[in-house]
């Protein structure tokens, strides 16, 4: 009898555990359906082609225009700038930690990077206003320095921990024999790093960059606080920009429920979702390729 009860508990909990697993699918499915539903509702009011190719985002004007292009270009510009800063720094740091630093230095550097990853985005955005902004303003003679460059610098700081951690794993995973072969033919440590180790770790490093891109595209608070939020078509790094995430954050609080404008913000979110999804899937593809390549 007692055994019977225990077996019943066993089955009951197995069912519970499996249900939670299925719930995870339901959550992602829910997010997907929510975006799809509202985006379709938006496209009933506005032509999809106008949305994708429109060069003006002005939903509150007398003739509202819902062109997502300036927002996408803003996001891309800020992300590109962030990667130009973060990729070389990240790979260099990863190489230093994995190939050059001793045990004790490693034990200091790794927690340092974890700490940097832990800093909340709103705190980094705040520092963008009080430090980076005035710094840029002094250099360029602008009034406040809230522009794409500011956002790019902050996003670089936010993406660096991701890039460093994944790239360091990749460099670490390159078999020792590769390096020994390189030393054996007379190469020094630097030549080995540049010509052998980093090329061998390339898929993992590409994965690191793509995951960093995914983080930068989806980041909201830093760009909301530091890029100036002017929804015009950006011309360069010294222009104020307004990214997709910032547009959602600013306008969602003000729009009436289930208006065209409300649906439009979900349509932006769908584009954002697809962009981060692509970045993450490409990143993951390279992570897997790297694993297979070194398992063989």
């Amino acid at each position, binding site marked *: 009898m007692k055994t019977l009860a225990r077996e019943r508990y066993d089955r009951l909990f197995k069912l519970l555990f*499996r249900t939670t697993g299925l719930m995870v*699918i339901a959550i992602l499915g829910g997010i997907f359906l929510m975006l799809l539903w509202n985006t379709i509702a938006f496209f009933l009011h506005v032509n999809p082609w106008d949305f994708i190719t429109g060069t003006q985002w002005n939903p509150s004007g007398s003739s509202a225009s819902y062109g997502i292009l300036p927002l996408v270009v803003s996001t891309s510009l800020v992300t590109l700038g962030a990667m130009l800063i973060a990729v070389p720094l990240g790979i260099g740091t990863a190489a230093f930690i994995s190939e050059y630093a001793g045990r004790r230095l490693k034990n200091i550097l790794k927690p340092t990077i974890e700490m940097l990853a832990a800093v909340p985005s709103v*705190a980094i955005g705040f520092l963008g206003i009080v430090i980076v902004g005035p710094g840029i303003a002094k250099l360029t003679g602008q009034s406040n320095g809230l522009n794409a460059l500011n956002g790019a610098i902050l996003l670089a700081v936010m993406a660096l921990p991701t890039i460093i951690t994944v790239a360091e794993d990749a460099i670490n995973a390159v078999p020792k024999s590769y390096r020994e072969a390189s030393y054996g033919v007379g190469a020094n440590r630097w030549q080995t790093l540049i010509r052998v180790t980093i090329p061998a770790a390339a898929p993992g490093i590409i994965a690191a960059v793509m995951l960093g891109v995914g983080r930068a595209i989806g980041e909201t608070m830093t760009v909301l606080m530091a890029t100036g939020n002017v929804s015009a078509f950006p011309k360069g790094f010294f222009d104020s920009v307004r990214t997709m995430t910032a547009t959602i954050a600013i306008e969602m609080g003000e729009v009436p*429920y289930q208006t065209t404008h409300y649906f439009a913000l979900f349509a932006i979110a769908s584009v954002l979702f697809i962009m981060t999804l692509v970045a993450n899937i490409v990143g993951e593809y390279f992570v897997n390729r790297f694993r297979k390549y070194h398992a063989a």
Partner: protein
Amino acid sequence: MKKLTSLLEWPVLIFCTATVCFFLGVIITDLVGKGWSALSWEFITSRPADGMTKGGILPAILGTVLITLITALFAVPFGICCAVYLNEYAKDTWLTRLIRACIRNLSGVPSIIYGLFGLALFVQGLRLGTSVLSAGLTLGLLSLPYVITTTEEALRRIPASMREAALGVGATQFESIRDVVLPSALPGILTGVVLTLSRAAGETAPILFTGAAFYINGTSGYLNQEFMALPYHLYMLSTQHQAIEEVRPLAYGTALILLMVIFLLNLTAFYIRYKHRNDD
């Protein structure tokens, strides 16, 4: 050529590493340097006064503690159950692979989209309104993939022999998980949970539309009311307040408190991990 490159190698790599450390250094020194003077006993124990230009941030601290608790109550049991299923029960079928793919994708979804989902599901769909509960559950959804991944990692480190020993003396699979596997994986699970909660406590975007308010009358604590939170308070003080320069010291103080809360949680996690490493 060889000489030149070997001359460059150390400066280049040390420059990269030093720059990264410099970023963290700037963040800490600036916030501590300028925020320290704003800190006082009164700052953390009193309510805002005179249109936010004076007084403290007690409601924001309490609000952050409260939503983090709700996040934990939702995400921790849910996440642990799911990780147990994936690591202890699931075979390598298409369904398992689908669940894993969903978890990986969920951890890549931007936090602002979680905000929209929370708005659509909890605020409007389940009619919880803009409230502590909606915001806490939204952050719970955001934290879920991290809890699952870190818990699964902790479970994976438990050797199969321990499970086999438990099954061998007649335990059911559930009993072996409850009495053997989970207790031995506890330090690892705890590390992951604390790190995840520290992330959730600092998130702003998901609570923008789900319940955070700049100012509330009376004390917070009711689950169906709007609330103040540290990250949101910092955002409002530094961008939306009508006298931004005047409240800058308060913003610095808020930022420092937020950073201290999060670093404290992180150090706790590091400590658990470090102590556990010495165990085995």
